[in-house]
C-alpha cells in the first residue's frame, strides 16, 4: 500500500509543513477546513469538472508526434496538449479550482503571484468569469520581460502590482503576495500558482492539476493499451509535473522532472533547485531551495520566466529524496533547440518552459527501442514567448 501524502501536518516525508508567521495560521486553518469540505462534496467536484469541460475545453488532446518519432528514430512520442487549454497553459486548471473554492468561502477578492504571467492571466481570467476582484503581484523585471501578459491581465480587469524588492522576479512577487495576504486575509483568498507554499497549498494545487494525469492515463491506455514507459514534465514550482505524475505514482512508468539549467550547471546562472540546491524553508514550506552558505535565498536564472524560481514544491523534494522521480536539467540553448524542432516537425510552438521537458525527452528517445513509449506534458503554448523567440531566431528564419 502506498503511503498517502501529505500527512495531517502537511508533510511529505521530511518536507512540507507550515513555516509561516502566526498571523497566517488562522487563515491556513480556515482554508484547509473549507478545502476538505469542498473536496468531499460531490456538487463542488461536479461544478469544477463542468467548468473544465465547457469553459476550459477539457479534456485536452493526446497527440501522437509521428513525424518527430520517425525523425528521432526511437521510442514513440506522445504529447499531452495542455497548450490547448483555455488561456494557453495548464495553469487554468488550478485557477478554476481555487476560484470556485474562494467563492464557496465567500471571499470576493483574490490575490495571485506570477512569474511568466501565465498564472496571473489564469487568475485574471477566472476572476472575470466568476465576478471576483483580482490583484496580481509581479516582479518588475518580469513585467518588463512579459509585457504582453501584463496587458492581457489588465484587459481582463486585474490590477497588476509591480514588485521591486529583491531582484523583482517570481520569488519577490510571492513574498509580496504573502505579505499582502497577511494584512488582508479576512476577505481575500490567496490563489497560489504552483504546488508550493505552506500546507494545504501544495496538496490543493496538485489535486486541481491531477486532471492532467487522470486524462492522460485514460487516453494513453485507449491508444496504446499499456502505460507509457517514460513520462516527462518541466519543473518550475512543479504543478504541471505533479499534475501529470501523481496518478502514475506507483505504476510502472518512469517519471522524469526537468529543471532549468539556464546557462549551464557549472555556472551560477540556473534554476536547478533539486540538482543543485539544499534543504531549507522557502515561502512557508520545507523543501529544496537555492541559497548561500548563510541561508540567504539566492536568485535563480532561466530564459523561461516560469521556471525562474529558487524553490520547488515539497512533494517533489520528497519524490526526489525517495527516488520515485528522476530529475534532470536542460539549458536555455537545449530548450530553444527542442522548441524549434517541435515547431518545424509537428506545427506546435510550445512554451519555453515546456520545451525543457521536450529537450530531455528528445535526448532519451533515440536510445529507446521503437516499441517503447514516451509521454511529454506540453504544459503550455509559446505565444507569450514570441518576443524572446524573435530575439533568438530572427536571423535563422
Amino acid at each position, binding site marked *: 500500500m502506498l503511503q498517502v501524502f501529505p500527512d495531517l*501536518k502537511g508533510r511529505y516525508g521530511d518536507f512540507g*509543513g*507550515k*513555516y*509561516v*508567521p*502566526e*498571523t497566517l*495560521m*488562522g*487563515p491556513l486553518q480556515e482554508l484547509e477546513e473549507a478545502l476538505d469540505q469542498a473536496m468531499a462534496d460531490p456538487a463542488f467536484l461536479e461544478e469544477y469538472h463542468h467548468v473544465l469541460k465547457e469553459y476550459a475545453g477539457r479534456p485536452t488532446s493526446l497527440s501522437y508526434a509521428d513525424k518527430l518519432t520517425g525523425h528521432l528514430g526511437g521510442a514513440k512520442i506522445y504529447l499531452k496538449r495542455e497548450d490547448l487549454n483555455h488561456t494557453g497553459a495548464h495553469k487554468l486548471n488550478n485557477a478554476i479550482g481555487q476560484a470556485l473554492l474562494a467563492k464557496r468561502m465567500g471571499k470576493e477578492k483574490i490575490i495571485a503571484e506570477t512569474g511568466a504571467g501565465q498564472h496571473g492571466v489564469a487568475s485574471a481570467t477566472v476572476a472575470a468569469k466568476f465576478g471576483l476582484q483580482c490583484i496580481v503581484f509581479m516582479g518588475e523585471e518580469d513585467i518588463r520581460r512579459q509585457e504582453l501578459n501584463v496587458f492581457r491581465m489588465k484587459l481582463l480587469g486585474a490590477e497588476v502590482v509591480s514588485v521591486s*524588492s*529583491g531582484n523583482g522576479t517570481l*520569488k519577490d512577487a510571492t*513574498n509580496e503576495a*504573502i*505579505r499582502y495576504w*497577511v*494584512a*488582508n*486575509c*479576512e476577505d481575500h483568498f490567496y490563489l497560489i500558482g504552483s504546488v508550493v507554499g505552506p500546507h494545504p497549498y501544495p496538496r490543493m494545487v496538485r489535486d486541481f492539476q491531477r486532471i492532467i494525469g487522470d486524462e492522460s492515463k485514460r487516453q494513453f491506455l485507449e491508444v496504446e493499451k499499456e502505460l507509457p514507459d517514460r513520462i516527462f514534465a518541466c519543473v518550475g514550482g512543479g504543478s504541471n509535473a505533479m499534475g501529470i505524475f501523481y496518478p502514475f505514482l506507483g505504476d510502472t512508468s518512469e517519471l522524469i522532472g526537468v529543471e532549468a539549467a539556464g546557462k549551464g550547471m557549472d555556472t551560477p546562472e540556473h534554476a536547478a533547485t533539486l540538482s543543485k540546491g*539544499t*534543504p*531549507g*524553508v*522557502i*515561502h*512557508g514550506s520545507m523543501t529544496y*531551495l537555492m*541559497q548561500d*552558505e*548563510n*541561508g*540567504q*535565498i*539566492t536568485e535563480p536564472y532561466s530564459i523561461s520566466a516560469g521556471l525562474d524560481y529558487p524553490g520547488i514544491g515539497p512533494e517533489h523534494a520528497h519524490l526526489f529524496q525517495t527516488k520515485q522521480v528522476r530529475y534532470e536539467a536542460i539549458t536555455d540553448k537545449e530548450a530553444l533547440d527542442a522548441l524549434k524542432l517541435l515547431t518545424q516537425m509537428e506545427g506546435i510552438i510550445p512554451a519555453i518552459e515546456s520545451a525543457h521537458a521536450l529537450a530531455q525527452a528528445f535526448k532519451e528517445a533515440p536510445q529507446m527501442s521503437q516499441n517503447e513509449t514516451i509521454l511529454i506534458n506540453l504544459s503550455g503554448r509559446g505565444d507569450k514567448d514570441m518576443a524572446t523567440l524573435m530575439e533568438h531566431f530572427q536571423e535563422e528564419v
Partner: protein
Amino acid sequence: MLTKTSFQGKLTKTEDLFIPFIVAGDPSPELTIQFALRLQEEGADVLELGVPYSDPLADGPTIQRAAQRALKSGMSLRKAIELVPKLREHGLEIPVVIFTYYNPVLQIGHEEFFQLLGENGVEGLLIPDLPFEESEEIRNRSEEKGIEFISLVAPNSDQRIKQIAEHAKGFLYCVSSLGVTGERKEMSAEALAFIEKVRQYSQVPVAVGFGISTNDHVQLVRNHADGVIIGSKIIRLIEAEIENIEKGRMDEALKHFTKEIRALVQ
C-alpha cells in the same frame, strides 16, 4: 498571575517593559553596538537583535530596507550571535533576544546553532516563521539551554491563544494587528480587547508590538499591557541618521537618536 520572568535571571521586572528591535549590522556592526547602548540608557529592558534575511515574510518595507543595509555590511546569523559578547564588552547588560527567520538556523543546524547561542551568552530566541506546531524541537532545546523561546499571538489566533500563551516563555509577543511589521496610525479598540484576552492566559508579561510608532501609542499600550515592542519606528530613526553617519557626524547622529527615543518612550 505573572511569574517572574527570567532571561537567566537578568529580567526581574514584569511590567512597563520597553523592548526595542534593531537589525544587527544596520548600517554597520559597530553602529549597532552604539545604538543598542543608547537604547539601554533610555530604559530598554530587553534588546531584540534582528538578523537580516533575504526574504523576510513577516516584515514591511522599513525592516526590509534595514535587512538589505545589514546584508551589505556582511551580517549573517553567525555574526549576529557573535556580536552579543561584543555588546557586553561595551557595557550592554540587558538580555538579548536573537530574532531570526528559520532558514538561516537550518543551514547552521540545530545542534551547532544552540551551541553558538550558549557560548555567546544569548538569553532569548524568536523565530517568526516557526509557529507553535513546527517549533517543538526548538522549544525543547531552548529550555535545556536556559534560553527563553519567545512566542507570538495574533488577533486571529483564536483558539490557539490559550495553548500558545500557556507555553510562553520570557514574554509573550502580542501582534497588535494583522499585517506585516511597520508603523500604523492608530491602535484599534479590537486590539485592546485582544490584549485583555491574551493576558487572561499568559503566565509571562504580555508585550505588544507591530505598528507602535508614537508616544501616544506607547502610553496606550502601557495602560493595557506589560510591555511595548518598537521596531520599524526605531529603524526609521536610525535611517534618518544615516546621512549624518556617512558624513562622519557620529556624535550628532547618536545625540539626535537619543533625543528622539526619549520623546517616543518617556
